[in-house]
C-alpha cells in the first residue's frame, strides 16, 4: 500500500494584469496617469514567478522517486491570485494554462482604479490568513509566495516587501536563482544586487520576488488553455477579505519627461575644460 505523498509546498503566485510590454505608454489627456485603453497582459515578472513555481514542482517530482507522475496529486500545489476587473480573469486563465492548479480572483469594478501596493499586500495577507485558518494544521498552509519584483505599468516594486513585513515572513527579493529544500524547510535564493549576486538562506514561510534572470517562461499551449477553462477559480471581493481599497495616495500630475534639448559641440579640449569648470565640475 503506497502512502499518500507528503504535501511538500503550497505556493501562492499573485499575478497582475498590466499594460502589455510592447505597447507605447502615453499619458492620458487628464494627466492623471497612463492611458489604459490599450492591450493588457500578465506582467512579465509575474510570468517568471508562475514559471518558477512550476519548475519548483517539476524539480520536486523528479527528485522524489515514490511520487506519482500526475501533477494533480503532486506534493506541490500552486495557486494563482489576481486583483482586478472582470477582464483580469484572462490573466488568471493564462497562469492556469501553464500549470497553476487553481485560481483566486479578487474582483473590482470595470471602471475602478487598480489598488495601491499596500492594499494589494493587505489583500494577499488576508487571503493567506483565511486559507491558513481553513487548513488548520500544517497541510494546506501557504508556505511560499512568489511575486514579480515590480509591475511594468506603475513600477512600484514594493508589494512583495510590504507583504513580507505584514506577515512577518522572511523575504528574498530580486531572485535570480531559487533552490528549495523541503526536507529542512529552507530556501536558498541568489539575489541580484548592484555589486553582483547575494545568497540568502531563508526559513519557510518565505516571500520571494522574481527578477528577470530567474527563468524563461514557457508558452501556454492551446490544449492546456482549453483544459484551464475547467480549473477552479475562487471569486472574492475586497469586502470579503475585509480590506479597504480606498487610495491613500493622490496622484497630482503625470507628465511625459521633458524633451531632450540638443547638446553643444566643443571645438577643442580647452573649450571642454572651460565648459566643465563653468558647470562646476572640477578635478578634486
Amino acid at each position, binding site marked *: 500500500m503506497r502512502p499518500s505523498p507528503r504535501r511538500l509546498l503550497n505556493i501562492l503566485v499573485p499575478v497582475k494584469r498590466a499594460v*502589455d510590454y*510592447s505597447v507605447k505608454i502615453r499619458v492620458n489627456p487628464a494627466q492623471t496617469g497612463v492611458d489604459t*485603453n490599450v492591450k493588457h497582459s500578465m506582467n512579465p515578472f509575474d510570468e517568471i514567478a508562475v514559471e518558477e513555481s512550476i519548475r519548483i514542482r517539476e524539480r520536486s517530482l523528479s527528485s522524489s522517486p515514490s511520487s506519482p*507522475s500526475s501533477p494533480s496529486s503532486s506534493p506541490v500545489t500552486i495557486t494563482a491570485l489576481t486583483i482586478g476587473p472582470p477582464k483580469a480573469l484572462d490573466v488568471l486563465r493564462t497562469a492556469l494554462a501553464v500549470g497553476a492548479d487553481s485560481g483566486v480572483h479578487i474582483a473590482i469594478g470595470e471602471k475602478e482604479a487598480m489598488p495601491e501596493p499596500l492594499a494589494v499586500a493587505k489583500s494577499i495577507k488576508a487571503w493567506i490568513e483565511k486559507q491558513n485558518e481553513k487548513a488548520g494544521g500544517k497541510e494546506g498552509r501557504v508556505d511560499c509566495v512568489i511575486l514579480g519584483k515590480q509591475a511594468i505599468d506603475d513600477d512600484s516594486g514594493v508589494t512583495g516587501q510590504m507583504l513580507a513585513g505584514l506577515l512577518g515572513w522572511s523575504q528574498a527579493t530580486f531572485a535570480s536563482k531559487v533552490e528549495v529544500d523541503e526536507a529542512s524547510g529552507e530556501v536558498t535564493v541568489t539575489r541580484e544586487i548592484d555589486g553582483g549576486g547575494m545568497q540568502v538562506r531563508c526559513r519557510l514561510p518565505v516571500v520571494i520576488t522574481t527578477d528577470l534572470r530567474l527563468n*524563461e517562461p514557457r*508558452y501556454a*499551449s492551446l*490544449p492546456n488553455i482549453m483544459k484551464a477553462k475547467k480549473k477552479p477559480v475562487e471569486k472574492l471581493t475586497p469586502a470579503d477579505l475585509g480590506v479597504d481599497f480606498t487610495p491613500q495616495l493622490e496622484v497630482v500630475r503625470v507628465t511625459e519627461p521633458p524633451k531632450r534639448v540638443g547638446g553643444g559641440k566643443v571645438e577643442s579640449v580647452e573649450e571642454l575644460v572651460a565648459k566643465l569648470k563653468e558647470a562646476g565640475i572640477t578635478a578634486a
Partner: protein
Amino acid sequence: MRRSKPALLPARLLFKRSIRTSAPRWNQPFDPKSIERAEDEVDVCIVGGGPAGLSAAIRLKQLEREKGNEIRVVVLEKGSEAGSHILSGAVIEPRALDELLPEWRTMEEHPLRQPATSSKMLFMTEKMTFPMPHPPQMSNKGNYIVSLSQYARWLANVAENEYGVEIYPGFAGAQLLLSEAPDAKDAWGNDVRSVRGVITNEVGLTKDFRMKSSFEPGMAFRSKVTLLAEGAHGSLSKQAIQMYDLRKESEPQTYAIGLKEVWRVDPSEYKPGLVQHLVGWPLSSDTYGGGWVYHMNDGLVSLGLVIALDYKNPYLSPYRELQRMKHHPFFRRLLKDGERIGYGARSLTEGGFQSIPKLNFPGGALLGCSAGVVNIAKIKGTHNAMKTGMLAAEAAYEAIHEESEDAPATDMSGYDKAFHESWVRDDLYEVRNLRPSFGTKLGIWGGMAYSGVDTLFLKGRVPWTFKHHRPSHGPDKTSSLDSSFTEKADLHTPINYPPFEAPLSTDLMTSVALTGTNHAEDQPVHLRVVKTKDFVKGIEESQNFAVGAGVNALKAEAEIDAVAEDEVEAERKRRIEHVKVNVGEYAGLLQRACPAGVYEYIDVEGSGNTPEGDAWQGKKLVINSQNCIHCKLCDIKVPTQDITWTVPEGSGGPKYTLT
C-alpha cells in the same frame, strides 16, 4: 506524395491522458515526421477574428439557438487579442450589423458612437485644395466612423460572452489539414484532397529551425467546415486559391496599401463626424490612390493614404508619401498642436466584382477580404465582409450533418450560390467598372471622367465589364498582377522626398514603435524567400517546412535528413537570385516599400560574401522580421514574386487598439 502521419487517437482519449509538456529536446533540428500533435474536433473552425469571421461565428450560434442542433465554433486569431491586427479608416455602413444584431444600439459599449455627418471630396495640389463633387455612393447618411480595431474587439466580446463562441487569440492558422488521399472534387471536376481542418503554428523553434526547450507542436483542429477569414491576401487563403484553382474563371485580385495615423488634434480643429477624401497631390497622375481624414469620437482624427500597388516607379515609398502629404498646408493646420498616437498599415483589395474567386472549396470557404469584397467607390468593405460571414454560416449550418470518420468533405457550394444572389454581389456589381477605368493611359483623368458618368448616371447598368489592365506580359495566376506593373529602376528617377519635420512627420522607426509590434525573438523568419507554389510544394510534398527560411535553417534540416542536401543549395540560389534582381534591376524596392522597415539590402562587410554564401555582388538581404506589421505588401508587390508571407508565432505582430 502522402504525408506520413503518426497514429491519431480520438480526441477525447487524448484529453483523458494528462498531456505533460514534452521532455526538452535541446537544440535538435525540427523533424516534421516525428511530430505528435494534440488534436481536437470542432464543427466549424474559423481562421481570423475580424468582422467577417466573427459575424460567421455569431450567426452560427444564432442558428444553433433557433434550430437546436448544437454546433461547436472555434475562432483562431493570430493577434494577441481580437482587433490587434486590424486596421482601416473606417466609415461603416451598418447594413450587415442591423441584420446580424438588430438590437446593437441598445448593447452597452458598442463602438459606433460617432455618426458620419458629412462627406466631402477635395482635390489637392502641392499648396491648395479644391472641393470636388464625389460619387453619390460615397455619401454617408446613416454611417458611422469607427476604429475597426475597437469594432472587432467588441464583436469578439459579444461572440464569446453572449454566444459562447470559443476564441483563441495568439494562435495562428498555419497550415490547412488535408485529407489523406484525394477524396473530393473541386469546382472544375478534378480529384483533390479536401480541407479537413487547420493546424496552428509551432512554437519554440529557433531561427535555424532547432527546437528550444519550450517547443510545442501546433495543434490540429479537425473541423467539418473551415472558414478562412484572414483579411486581404491571407496566407491560408492564398494556398487554398492556388490548390483549388479558385481564380480559374475570375480576374486576378488587385490591391492597394493603406497607411494610417491616428491623431489627437487641437480642439479648435476637431469637427466630429467630418469625412473627407483627398485625391491628387502627392500622388502622380498615373498612380491610383488618395488620402482621407475622418474625425472620430473623443477628439481623435483618423488620417491616411491609400496607394494602389500597381504603381510603376520602384522608387516610390508609400511611407514617405504619407509623411510628405502631411506637409500640405491643409494638414499643417489640422495637426498643429496635435499629438500622434497611432500608426499602422495594411493591404486592402481593390479588384471588386471581377476578382471574386470561386468562394468555396471542398471542406471550406473564403470570407470577407480573403475573397475581396471592398466596394472601392464607397471605400467600404466591412458591411460586405460581415454579410459574407453570415451567408457562409447559414450554408455551413445547412451542410453539416452528423457524420462518421469517412463522411465526404462538407460541400459549401451553397455559400457561393447565396453570395451571388445577395446584396453583396449587387453592391459590388454596381461599381465594378470604376477601378479598371483608371487603368488606361489617361490615368486618373480618364478614370475620374468615366467614373463620374458611371456613378452619377449609369450606376453600372451597362453590358460591359472591364477587365483589370495588364502590363505587356501577363503574370501567372498565383503571382500578383500588381507586381508585374513595376518598371525597372533605370526607367525612373529617385523621388526627392522632403526631410522629416518632427512631430508632424517622423522617421519610419518612430512610427513603427507606435504600432506596438513585436515578435518573440529567435523564431523562424516568417517571411519566406520562395515562390508560393514552391512553398506549398515544399510543405505538402517534400515535407520541407523550412523552405525559404534561410540557408542555416535548411542546413539544420539537412542535418537530420529531413530534407535532401540539394535543398540547401537551392535555398542559397533563391536568395542570390532575389538579391540580384531586386537590387540590380529594381533598386531594392522592398526596402523602400515596406511600411515597417523589415527589408534591407545591405553591404556585406569584409570579404564580400556572407558565411551562408547568399550575397550577390557584395549585397545581402536582411529581413528584420520582428518589425513586421502583417500588412502583406511584400508578398503582393515584390517584383520577383518570391516572398511568401506565412504566420509567425501567435501573439506577435502589431497591437493596434485605435486603428
